[in-house]
């Protein structure tokens, strides 16, 4: 019987871990446990809050490479005023556009497929005006040429999808959802926001919406998620008008599932009570278990 000394044991362990983690990158990131951090910035001055959050994450330069395109995906799906909270705050979007440009982005594009008439949604939300002012390019995904057919090999239901080209081919993809209630998925947070980047939404509704939301996240992997929880819609979402609350928070994180998991607590809900968070966690897209997520609160 050959015994294994400590050094050998360590070697094998490290090697196995390396192999496993290279084969299953998803699981490894979920299993990294304590390394997943979600930064929650409290405050009222949005530009200040963004600056504070990004300083903790290592600055904009860590995400935005010089001369590369940056794609932002705010939620501008509905005809809604900024204070009504159905769309991402225009100041937040504009702040991020400015910051990306300062960090050296060649251009900042914001593609969005609205549920309501896009002109009315873009206008009433104030996002288009704010973005135009700071030199971003926001446009509606209305034509077939905006999309590319993609295969999703790791998906369970959504095996194929037409996804916005600007979401696929970009130097840095940043998800900027707004936290609000939703009539069929209970809450709509970061992951469900990608529904505004695909052509055929109706397929999702016909075929297990929650699974499709999770499936889509196997393909679309944002470098960063900035969740707008300055005001949240508690009822009658996603369209509103509904009851409101003002947590005055912006949530930053690189793990899309962890950000969503934290956001559920704002609505006094368990992360795994939202089916697509549970599914995404189980599929290894990210970590939805808040015990393994470090939540850092920052005042700004």
């Amino acid at each position, binding site marked *: 019987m050959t015994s294994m000394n400590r050094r050998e044991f360590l070697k094998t362990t490290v090697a196995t871990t390396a192999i496993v983690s290279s084969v299953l990158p998803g699981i490894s990131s979920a299993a990294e446990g304590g390394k997943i951090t979600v930064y929650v910035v409290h405050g009222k001055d949005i530009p200040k809050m963004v600056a504070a959050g990004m300083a903790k994450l290592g600055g904009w330069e860590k995400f935005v490479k010089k001369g590369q395109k940056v794609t932002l995906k705010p939620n501008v799906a*509905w*005809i*809604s*005023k900024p204070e*009504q909270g*159905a769309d991402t705050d225009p100041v937040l979007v504009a702040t991020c556009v400015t910051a990306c440009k300062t960090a050296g982005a060649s251009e900042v594009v914001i593609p969005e497929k609205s*549920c309501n*008439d896009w*002109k*009315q949604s*873009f*206008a*009433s939300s104030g996002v*288009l*005006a704010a973005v*135009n*002012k700071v030199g971003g390019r926001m446009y509606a995904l209305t034509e077939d040429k905006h999309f590319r057919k993609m295969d999703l090999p790791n998906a369970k239901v959504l095996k194929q999808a037409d996804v916005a080209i600007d979401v696929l081919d970009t130097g840095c993809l940043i998800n900027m959802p707004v936290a609000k209630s*939703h*009539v*069929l*998925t209970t809450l709509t947070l970061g992951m469900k926001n990608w529904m505004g980047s695909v052509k055929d*939404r*109706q*397929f*999702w*509704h*016909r075929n*297990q*919406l*929650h699974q499709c939301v999770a499936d889509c996240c196997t393909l679309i992997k944002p470098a960063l998620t900035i969740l707008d929880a300055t005001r949240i819609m508690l009822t*009658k979402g*996603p*369209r*509103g*008008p509904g009851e409101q609350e003002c947590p005055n928070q912006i949530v930053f994180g690189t793990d899309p599932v962890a950000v969503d998991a934290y956001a559920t607590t704002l609505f006094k809900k368990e992360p795994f009570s939202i089916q697509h968070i549970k599914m995404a966690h189980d599929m290894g897209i990210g970590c939805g278990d808040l015990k393994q997520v470090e939540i850092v609160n920052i005042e700004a």
Partner: protein
Amino acid sequence: MRLVIRILVLVVAAVFATQIIPVMVERRLESESLANGGTGIVASTAVTGRTCALLLPALSPFSAVSSAVAKQSVGWVFLLCIPVFVMSVIKGRWFCFHLCPTGFLAEMAGKLRPGSKSKFVSMPRAGGIIVLFALGGAVLGYPIFLWLDPLCIFNGFFSVWHVPLTLVTLLPVIGLIFIIALSVWRPNAWCYRFCPLGFSQELLGKAWRHVLHVHTQKRQAILSIEAGHKPDTGLGRRFFLALVAGGISSFAARKVFGKQQPIRPPGAITEDKFTAICIRCGNCVRACPKKIIVPDIGQSGVAGFLTPVIKMDPNFCAEWCNECTKVCPTGAITRISLTEKNNIAIGTAFVTKSNCLAWEKDQACMVCDEYCPFHAIKTIKRGEVLCPEVDPAICRGCGFCQAGCPAERKAIIVHGKPQRKLAHVKLQGT
């Protein structure tokens, strides 16, 4: 000179009917706003001159007076018919000779065959019957034949040219083509034998002269009775009989309904008057930015041929728009504000459970609830699954749910209902 004026009027009328100017103004405002870092959106409350489209059809005293009598109300649009009304009292067919664009086209077409210039004389004076039938019907609230007004036929011809161009939207074109074809076959026949507007001008002129000469006529009548002759009341009797006949036939016509109440544009007056007072000018079809208003073929019966109906899927009646209510020359669609429009139910949505993903396949769907601008969908909990049901006290029938329904066969469909006012609902974004 007369020729220049007539060509000018023709062009201006065509431009108004095609609503080119408002579209151009909107485009300019849009690009200006975009260039200035704005959103490029023209608010639906902004005056873009779309209302100009009603100018031409509203000039006609024939359709204006008949529809005002039938509705028993007048708006400011009615005032537009007064110039022509006054001119025809003073000068008879003055408008016909100098301004009427349809008359001009008919005249030009008639010149193709100068040989048969006077063949129309043997044709019956149908125009008179049309006018009297319309007036008789108007008293009973159903003025038939209003759609024979030449100005609205002209307007209809030009207003249909917009995308998407389908066979159905092209149908209103036949009116003007028919007039031109008739004028080639029998020059002058339309103007002197059929045109109700022409005859009503003649009638007004005659009536005025009749009033002027009433004294001399009375004296003559007395003289003739004294001389042993019966007084001449021929015209009066015929006039009266035609009015009565118009009343009776309108009474019969308004009983002819389609099988189903069609979905009318918001602000439409009651169905039993709508099919008569609507002159099929095509303005509302043209004005709709969502292109959901189409000329009807058969849904609302024979009486409603080519009247505007709403076809929902794949678009819907947007809650930020009331363009169609701004362009009706006869008031078949009343002028209402955006708020008023949003509080009118043009129909009601119904859930067909056998098609519904939630009711039939236990899927979590509720897209109808997600999209409904008025929150008219009630959520029924059936075990774990949430299922939709429509609250008819809130549903406006805008059709957004129908447009969004992901089921293979639409599970929620808007059905026509007599329009009714509902309690105000605060909309998101207002």
